[in-house]
């Protein structure tokens, strides 16, 4: 079991290395400083979202409302500042909105026992709709003067490292500590490994599931702020893009089994690197959007199939024969 899992990580990392190397050699402009910066910036937001998704997937769930949690609270900050509210107040409002989204998701899944796929699909649609119908005046919420200084969250560099990458790194550390160093993290792994055993052991499963979705929504909100800061606006229509599939791609490809209880921050980093490089290379190669989707779809399919082979859900396969 252990060996198989390590080799999956290794395979993905090897594919990333091979891809990176061949792009560097054969693709003009791939290795240029400018392109590397774009690559890393794109990757940063994707990676942060991947961290949020990873927490939920490790707990045997999935969060399709993550993009809504990125677009709507992020957009809300920009909109509120535009409307003359102060930046801190707007940030608090955005945070509260994200927490509310997470609480609703968690309550639906843990207490009302709605499957996470449907609960988060519905809540994501609702929140995105709410944003477009009631909160934002334009599809793209513009930067305003009140936001001055905030763009440093996504632009420039700290000690020579692009800021968005630093933000990704900070998010990595926070999530790593949560998952591996705290009791809550141990609970999340336990619930993902065997939710029934977790219950019987006396782990407060339902509050922990709610916590997962709240943390995921907050991470989504953080990703949104980093994204808005790096492009000086919030294109709220991003909810309609295929970004959520890229996030799932990152998590599954990185080796976090959809059956839960496996993987961690390292897997998100590896997955992000591979997907980031792939997307960037395809853009430089001028592969049209449709072609890119085709390739992404294939890669996701292969990754999901490999996942079911390497990490089968055990309660079905391992049951003992009735005597």
């Amino acid at each position, binding site marked *: *079991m*252990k060996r198989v899992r390590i080799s999956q990580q290794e395979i993905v990392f090897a594919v990333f290395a091979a891809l990176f190397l061949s792009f560097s050699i054969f693709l003009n402009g791939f290795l240029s400083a400018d392109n590397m910066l774009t690559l890393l910036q794109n990757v940063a937001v994707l990676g942060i979202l991947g961290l949020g998704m990873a927490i939920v997937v490790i707990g045997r769930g999935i969060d399709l409302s993550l993009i809504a949690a990125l677009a709507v609270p992020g957009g809300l900050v920009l909109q509120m500042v535009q409307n003359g509210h102060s930046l801190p107040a707007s940030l608090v409002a955005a945070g509260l909105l994200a927490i509310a989204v997470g609480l609703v998701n968690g309550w639906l899944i843990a207490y009302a026992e709605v499957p996470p796929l449907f609960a988060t699909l519905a809540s994501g649609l609702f929140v995105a709709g709410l944003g477009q119908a009631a909160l934002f005046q334009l599809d793209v919420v513009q930067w305003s003067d009140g936001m001055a200084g905030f763009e440093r969250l996504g632009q420039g560099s700290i000690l020579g490292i692009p800021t968005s990458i630093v933000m990704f790194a900070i998010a990595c550390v926070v999530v790593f500590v949560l998952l*591996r*160093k*705290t*009791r*809550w*993290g*141990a*609970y999340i*792994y*336990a619930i993902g*490994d*065997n939710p*029934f*055993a*977790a*219950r*019987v*052991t*006396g*782990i*407060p*499963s*339902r509050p922990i599931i709610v916590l997962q979705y709240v943390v995921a929504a907050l991470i989504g909100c953080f990703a949104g702020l980093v994204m808005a800061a790096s492009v000086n606006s919030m294109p709220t229509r991003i909810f309609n893009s295929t970004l959520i599939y890229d996030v799932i791609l990152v998590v599954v490809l990185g080796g976090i089994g959809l059956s839960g*209880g*496996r993987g961690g921050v390292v897997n998100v980093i590896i997955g992000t690197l591979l997907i980031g490089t792939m997307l960037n290379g395809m853009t430089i190669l001028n592969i049209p959007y449709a072609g890119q989707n085709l390739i992404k779809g294939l890669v996701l399919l292969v990754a999901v199939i490999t996942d079911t082979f390497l990490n089968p859900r*055990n*309660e079905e396969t*391992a*049951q*003992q*024969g*009735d*005597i």
Partner: protein
Amino acid sequence: MNDLVLSLSKATKLYAGVPAIDGVDFDLRRGEIHALVGENGAGKSTLTKVMAGVVTLTSGGMTVDGVDVTPKTPLEARNLGIAMVFQENSLVPTMTVAQNLFLGQEKFYNRLRGIYIAAQQFLQSLNFDVTPTATVGGLGAAKKQMVEIARAVLHKAKVIIFDEPTATLTPEEKKYFFDLVKDLKRRGVSIIFISHALEEALLLADRITVLRDGKHVVTDDAARFDRARIVQAMVGRDLSNTLYGARKATVRPSGKRVLTVQNLKMAPMVKNNSLSVFAGQITGVFGLVGAGRTETFKIVAGVMKRDFFHGGEVILDDKPVRYRVPAPAVQAGIAYVTEDRKVEGFFETASIARNIYLGLLAKFPRGRAWLSRRESTSTGKSWIERLKVRAIGDEAKVVELSGGNQQKVVIAKSLIQDPELIIFDEPTRGVDVGAIVEIHELINSLADKGKAVVVISSYLPEIMALSDRILVCRQGKVVEEFSALEATEEAIMYAAIH
């Protein structure tokens, strides 16, 4: 009449090296009703599953109509004319009766009207009062069984196997079922039925076979059996020969009353159940499958969903309690060691130490917001030593261990929570021989330390060896109580069988 339709010789099936059936000879005559009786775990289900192609034999042979065959899949068995009607029936609830009858035999273009007419004619020819257009999910248990039987007949079954056919039926439905079976017999179909209800076996069967511990004990004409002889055959073990040691010579006295259950109800498994559990002794709970033992204690420990809680009281240390989830029950000092460790026992991707540590975290979260690798390793080590878990290092994954060692990890995960009331549900199921003795020693030592211990088991020798007090459950409630000194296997079995 001595025309054999099916026979098994020296049939053996091993599960992970442990025999479920061991060298069983069995034969079935054409047009006879053959009852199969035995305790839980005697190997009745395995034996019939072999015939139905659900389970493949490890060794031994099978003949159908004198030809050597071994069905490897249910489909092959069906083509041989062997049909099995399972306890959990295998009909599709959202489809109609007719659709279920013809399931798997549809033509490419499936005209509903056509199959309704065919089904109507067929059901009438059997004298079955079932509407072909009715949805199966809305039918009662008896009608569902009729559909299953009709399907078996439609598939030209020569042998129909029933697993506990009457368990879910009302008395009138039972009577109707008996008539059906007799009618099938007249058509030359051979019937095997597994039953815990001895009266039914005696009433209905032509011959009865008794199995015990996976071995064939006796087969004889039903007329030559009575209740006493069957019970004797079911339990007549040579106790000196088992692992469980001799009977107790002394019993522990009852300490403080820890748990009282009053008129607990949960349809359909628990009916007005009342019992008490005392500190400092082992309360053995015996009963056949479906007696509501597990359900009662799962309600006590909050493991069973509260939605199905229909009434009654659970009193823990003089305080009425009602747990919706296990977490508060764990906090109150109740530990439930599950009968199904793979499903709700351990965390398979986690190490032994982590499994045990999670038990500690769940019970005593205070001051443990941050994980401590040192505490995890040291508690893991000490429990591995205490329970003699045999593994390569305490970082070994639980899924890689043998059944007995897995069980020890599950027990350690509960014991680290320092419970006052420990419920062991089938503590030695699927556990290797050496570990059984060690687990029994452990259970005894807990009672010696003054804990209230409950052992639920459907294996009589285990109950006899461990218990100070024995409660016998039947059909959802405790029907009799014995002191271990006065109990005999026969008396307990008598009480447990309806």
